[in-house]
């Protein structure tokens, strides 16, 4: 979509006005600074998703829209999670878990670790399941970003 002020609110407004679900939404400018790319995760029947697509297409600032589920695609989400880490046993356990999930610890205090984790949304969920619930102090997630597999590209 055009990288213009207010474009994001048109998309968000459309979802609320028409009663569509919005699971997550991530947006940032692309390599072409006049364009932004947005990944929206929504839930609905085929008919609803068809309507969502058509209605989004009607927004003047939307340049192109694809349903990534139409082909095979890759999606990734970034999560930062702050966990309580006191005592050497706990600290070791969390380090091990972080390694298993291919995350990295990016900030350390004597009582906490902050872990960076990337993956599909379900992998991030799985990590949170694996960590003892009471140890999780804070999480922040970006929502999924998606891209099609192979050489095909979404270009304007």
């Amino acid at each position, binding site marked *: *979509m*055009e990288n213009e*002020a*207010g474009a994001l*609110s*048109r998309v968000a*407004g459309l979802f609320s*006005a028409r009663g569509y679900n919005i699971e997550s939404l991530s947006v940032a400018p692309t390599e072409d600074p006049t364009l932004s790319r947005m990944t929206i995760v929504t839930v609905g029947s085929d*008919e609803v998703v*068809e*309507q969502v697509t*058509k*209605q989004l*297409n*009607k927004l*003047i*600032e*939307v*340049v192109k829209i694809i349903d990534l589920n139409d082909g095979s695609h890759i999606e990734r989400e970034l999560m930062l999670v702050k966990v309580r880490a006191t005592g050497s046993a706990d600290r070791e356990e969390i380090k091990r878990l972080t390694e298993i999930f291919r995350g990295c610890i990016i900030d350390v205090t004597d009582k906490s670790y902050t872990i960076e984790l990337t993956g599909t949304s379900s992998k991030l969920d799985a990590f949170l399941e694996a960590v003892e619930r009471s140890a999780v102090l804070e999480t922040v997630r970006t929502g999924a970003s998606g891209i099609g597999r192979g050489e095909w590209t979404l270009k*304007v």
Partner: protein
Amino acid sequence: MSVELTGAEITIRCLQEEGVQCIFGYPGGAVLFIYDELFKQDKVRHILVRHEQAAIHAADGYARSSNHVGVALVTSGPGVTNAVTGIATAYMDSIPMVVISGQVPTNAIGLDAFQEVDTVGITRPCVKHNFLVKDINELAVTIKKAFYIASTGRPGPVLVDIPKDVSQQKVKFEYPDKVSMRSYNPVTKGHTRQIRKAAELILSAKRPMIYAGGGVILSNAAPQLTELTQLLNFPCTNTLMGLGGYPATDRQSLGMLGMHGTYEANMAMQYCDVLVAVGARFDDRVIGNPKHFFNENRKIIHIDIDPSSISKRVKVDIPIVGDVLDVLKELIKLLKESKEKPDQGALKEWWKQIDLWRERDCLKFDRDSKIIKPQRVIETLFDVTKGDAFITSDVGQHQMWAAQFYKFDKPRRWINSGGLGTMGFGMPAAMGVQLANPKGKVACITGEASIQMCIQELSTCKQYKLPLKIINLNNRYMGMVRQWQEFFHGNRYAESYMNALPDFVKLAESYGHVGMKIEQPGDVEGALKEAFKRKDQLVFLDFITDQTENVFPMVPGGKGLSEMILV
């Protein structure tokens, strides 16, 4: 050209470049520079309304009756919030319109300044698009885009919000000949293969039906719709927004369909085997309960410029995205080239069935009543104006009777708020219609409840000598509300009674117009004739009508098309 112009001058110059002759508005702090420029020129005429809602409705009526883009100018804050009802009305009916609004200066935006609202935010869900112009260099091209977006594709209102300081700054003026936008490329031509498939299906029909909506009017395709219908000898029904798309006095017209549609139109819609939907969107007031609609098997062809209108409420078999005019032309060409014809025997049987439904005479009413029947007033209005008037309406029972009893043979003659259902629309819209058609006969069919929602415009009519004929069907009730309360709420008429009504005759007179009160059925025709004789005067005709009259047929909410309540 090296002369620098102010933003205000540029705004007016852009309107001139677009060929705008008439705009509707109301001045205020944030648009004073623009009004100053309006004052200094005489190409663009400004009509001063008495409330911003009326400015938008008037621009809307102007657009609907003339096929030009309607233009309105309002100030920031309350100017905009008053305009919102009008903008939403135009949006729901896909009317091409450009609204220019003033905004507080850019350095005051967001600081809760006097008369500040988030105009772009408030209007976002009810415009096709909107812009806030923060940079004077963007002003001309933004206005160009606004006209382009408003008038192409599925039309709609576009708002341009101009901060006061931008209207003061200067820049070299250049108006682009055209704009292209990578993110906005409306389709016009339909897919040839789809049109071919549609033609084949049409030729195979045994019980065909053409269902035509407002898209036919908007794309100026009434002649093509008529040609198609007559070429095939198919029955045709028009939606509330589509009236005039096919001549209503013709035998092949089944009248309006839907909640208050005719028996024959609704039955034919339900029991046809091939349905050709043209510029219509199967909305809730048209097909009633979609589940019930699919109790019967039929194949559906759907022509619409807006892909999101297709398969929204009803799954269709052959969607054709494109401008109704282009698609119909191509479809007619294909059908004419084809050697085949639909099964004439089956078609004859189908017409026989339709004529049986017609015999039900679903629009009958008591013609010998001692009290004025509202239907009678409309019929007489049709006779007196020889079916050639521009009719606007407000919203309620009178609107449905107007749609049922005034037989529109031409497009752009019937101007009403179909989608949003805005009471107060009728008179201001009629002002716009009269300004677009100075020689036309313009009547506003209204009720005593609706008319009071924009009654202040009688003053505007006086100022610009607009000789409207106001047909007030005065039943001392919010008639449609009362009807629903009678049918579905145990006759409990909660707040639907209009107490303490004004003396409309005196009211009209106090604004400098002519008022008439008509209480006897025998006086209806004479009063209407007298009113239309007064070519230069607004005449307010207050018809005291039957309080208990209801609109029939009626498909109750949630019911199917063949489940009508009949007289």
